[in-house]
């Protein structure tokens, strides 16, 4: 008795199946953009390594670790101070806007965001004029800080508003019934849950303030030249390898700070949902 046994059907993936071709194209597309994005940084770095008599040298970087160090330090200081000040302004403001019925809420929000749409030069001039007439703070650290806060607090405010709007109130209420007062509830429940919004705000503020030079141009003094302004000033006198070295260093520092930030907070809070 030999009943015909049907052969087990087999399937072999074709090497050039349409699905594989399209996957390959997608990868190529992504890599193309990555290379294009990285290109300016790579060429700047290469330029900074060029020796006057041909060949490669690290000579330009010695200059960087001389006087440029101070500009970098100032940039980091003023950026951190701006972020802290922005947080102190934006968190209470976001609560007021999201949680309380304020008449004319939309109008207030639009006005608050005005700074974002103002061209840097206009902002710089207005600040220089305001400082000269109203305050005695032109060309100081405080002047710089004030300018950056005015220019960037919407970048902190908007992501926090979005995060707060999306934060269900049950968490706050659950914490209250479990015996936590307003303050404890905020620090132990709401703040961590607002993390994504706050992180986004910090990141945006950092990127803008650390690299800002246009407004700075109008209000910086000899002792308050930020790294970005220094780079800009140098490019006006020709594009030397030493200038390229400053630019590359700045970009590198920027990159490292963002990376460290993502590494420490990112895995906990910045899971992408609230990034705008």
């Amino acid at each position, binding site marked *: 008795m030999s009943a015909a046994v049907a052969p087990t059907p087999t399937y072999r993936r074709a090497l050039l199946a349409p699905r594989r071709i399209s996957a390959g194209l997608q990868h190529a597309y992504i890599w193309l953009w990555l290379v294009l994005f990285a290109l300016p940084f790579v060429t700047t770095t290469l330029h900074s390594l060029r020796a006057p008599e041909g060949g490669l040298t690290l000579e330009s970087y010695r200059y960087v670790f001389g006087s440029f160090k101070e500009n970098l330090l100032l940039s980091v200081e003023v950026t951190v101070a701006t972020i802290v000040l922005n947080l102190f302004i934006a968190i209470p403001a976001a609560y007021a806007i999201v949680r309380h019925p304020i008449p004319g809420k939309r109008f207030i929000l639009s006005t608050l965001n005005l700074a974002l749409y103002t061209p840097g030069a206009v902002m710089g001039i207005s600040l220089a004029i305001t400082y000269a007439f109203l305050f005695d703070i032109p060309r100081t650290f405080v002047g710089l800080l004030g300018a950056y806060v005015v220019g960037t607090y919407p970048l902190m405010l908007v992501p926090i508003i979005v995060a707060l709007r999306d934060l269900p109130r049950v968490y706050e209420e659950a914490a209250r*019934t479990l015996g936590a007062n307003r303050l404890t509830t905020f620090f132990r429940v709401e703040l961590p849950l607002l993390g994504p919004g706050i992180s986004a705000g910090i990141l945006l503020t950092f990127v803008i303030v650390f690299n800002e030079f246009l407004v700075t141009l109008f209000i910086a003094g000899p002792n308050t030249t930020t790294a970005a302004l220094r780079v800009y000033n140098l490019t006006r006198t020709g594009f030397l390898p030493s200038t390229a070295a400053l630019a590359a260093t700045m970009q590198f520092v920027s990159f490292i700070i963002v990376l460290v930030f993502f590494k420490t907070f990112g895995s906990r809070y910045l899971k992408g949902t609230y990034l705008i």
Partner: protein
Amino acid sequence: MARVRLVEVTKRYGQTVAVDRVSADIAEGEFVTLLGPSGCGKTTTLRMVAGLVEPTEGVILFDDQVVNAIPTHKRNVGLAFQSHALFPHLTVAKNIAFGLSVKRRPKAEIEQRVNELLAMIELEGYGDRMPAQLSGGQQQRVALARMLATDPRVLLFDEPLSALDRNLRDTLKYSILALQRRTKKTAIYVTHDQSEAFAISDRIFVMNKGRVEQAGTQLDIYLRPATEFVANFVGDNNALRGTVVEVHEDSNHRRATIRCGSLTVQAHAPGSIAPGDRVLAFVRPENIEVLQDGASADEPGLIEGAVEQVVFEGPAVRLLVDADGTPLKVTVSGVQRLTLLDAQRKRLRLRLREVSVVRDEAA
């Protein structure tokens, strides 16, 4: 562990009256449910007890203490939400420990209590998981443990099971009841699911449009609805419009004879009903007996009708009977139902039992 009283509590949002002069006296250790349709003010009432909503008028007391001015975090109530509301950034153990750690209890005590509670909800070894890594039923159990951790005076539940599937609901509702019985804490449970309310309550408050329509035991609510709304909202009911012909009174009964069109029915009459009143008589489909042939033909109060529809539902058979122009829903269970499967168009004799009456507000 506390007696909870609401005295004429009202909550208005602008023109909307969310809760309208609700009074309740809930004994220590009692399990009360607020039952009612969507928007009737159940959640608002519960949240006022928790202190999350401030009453516009009225007084709320725990034992003899007026709590109106006491903020939520000092009321020591446990509140279970429809969504479990576990803190997503904290582990299961940290969630359960939250209330104790806010109260700055010693670490060792917190750890012991957390382990105790994890054992109680049968989730030992789950302490290090994040809430998102648990199933819906497990999450709700953790939420229960979290609310019990601080030993609250009153347990409040706002439809804690409505997001779960039916099987889970059925087991968890008894877990909740068992927890409440074990801890002997006063509980207020909000639901719009009647079977849930009937299964676990000592007393049910039926609410409608911000008001308590009736408060009573399951039997009161089911067999002696106090208002038309309660009669229609709870379970299935036949409503018959009619007039009271006469009222009999003896030592422990008050019975009314009511004419509803061509039908005459006997009903339990509350004291406020008098001859001549326009009333609604209610009889539940399962309280209508189908008489076998040969039952005495001239027993008073029997009704005759033609079967218009027969629906076999497994454990029960539903009949639609036309009694002289009055449609009656009849539910028959037990083996008798099998004799009625081919009853279509036959004439049956029916005995109406447990008829209740309320005054006809429309008249």
